[in-house]
């Protein structure tokens, strides 16, 4: 076992892991951050998407020891400490961007990654970006709507605020 330390949602954390321990298993099993989901475990579905060093990655396709010293953000780090949802999370709620909710943590983290690099995406750009996030309930339509609405709100568009 090897000691690993990283910053998760602004908090310094550490634990003992095996070489083969995946980042997602460290987050879920050792830190109890079970908001990050394991969907396929074959890096296809994106349910395990978290941010490492500020960009979205699939935490089932990365070892915990590769995140040594890194800044990690999970779905638990998206809402404010008092539980107030982030703009993207609220947009998913308002636009019915989830049904069973299994893919949603990954969708939200992926969407947050998109809006960091492209604050004003077209619908097509949102759909292309979500290639690595699979949802088997919604048909994606409301997810796309939610992300476009969140983007507009974050840009401060008057139409979105109305």
């Amino acid at each position, binding site marked *: 076992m090897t000691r690993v330390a990283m910053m998760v949602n602004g908090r310094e954390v550490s634990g003992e892991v095996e070489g083969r321990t995946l980042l997602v298993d460290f987050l879920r099993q050792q830190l109890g951050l079970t908001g990050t989901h394991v969907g396929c475990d074959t*890096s296809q579905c*994106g349910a395990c998407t978290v941010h490492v060093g500020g960009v979205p990655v699939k935490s089932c396709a990365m070892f915990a020891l*590769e995140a040594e010293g890194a800044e990690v953000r999970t779905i638990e780090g998206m809402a404010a400490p008092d539980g107030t949802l982030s703009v993207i999370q609220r947009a998913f709620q308002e636009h019915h961007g989830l049904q069973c909710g299994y893919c949603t943590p990954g969708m939200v983290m992926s969407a947050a990654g998109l809006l960091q690099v492209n604050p004003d995406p077209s619908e097509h750009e949102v759909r292309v970006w979500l290639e*690595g996030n699979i949802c088997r309930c919604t048909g994606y339509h409301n997810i796309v709507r939610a992300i476009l609405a969140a983007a507009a709100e974050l840009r401060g568009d008057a139409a979105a605020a109305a």
Partner: protein
Amino acid sequence: MYDFEFARPATVDEAVALLADEDAQALGGGQTFIPTLKQRLAAPSRLVSLSGIAALRFVRMEGDLLCIGGGTTHATVAREAAARFPALAALAAHIGDPAVRNRGSIGGSLANNDPSACYPAAALGTGATIVTDRNTHAADDYFQGMFTTALEPGEIVTEVRFALPEAASYQKFVQPASRFALVGVFVARMAEGVRVAVTGAAEDGVFRWTEAEAALEDDFAPGVLEALSLPAEGMIGDMHGSSEYRAHLVGVMTRRAVVAATASG
């Protein structure tokens, strides 16, 4: 997956020393290799992660060459090569999905030489030079068949050097489940001549379509390819497409690449 000793050196020299062990294996971005480990298709005793080596991550011009560090992610290439080599940036921007592109690296892709990967087409299609900790390989000698390269065990791709084409395009027919190339063709008009490299199609991996190169050398226009075709023999045939289908697609994607390269050049 089976457990292993995990090492994350900070320099290439340390990595090479750690890889001297017979059962040691290098880990690039892990987007292919970690799924491989999960399937127990590989069982290294020691995994040497290259992700801690900052010196392997760069995109810069050296003279007329675009030089990219072996550990540079696809996302970084997509961003930082866009001005100098838009066809390469576009190729990088369509590998896998955004999260995969934040981990997967150019060196890892070239070391693995998946027969359906995109980067081998760019390297062979421009006659790139693959630099390692101990050698430099011309792309024409580097790719030696499916998942096979000129690399020795433990040899690390540290840098890839691209001469910039006068005009180029990579056209990929996406296999939608994996987002690998069902067929991908890189066409480049280089100072020394036209090169056409095909990935995804052949059982032996990436290859140059020399008949198309000769035809395009005389006239860089899609029409000159109409009379050419490739035999189905040696092409990959699977549930996604027969070998005849892939042979046909090579012609289609090559013509599209010539059209797109002409528009961009």
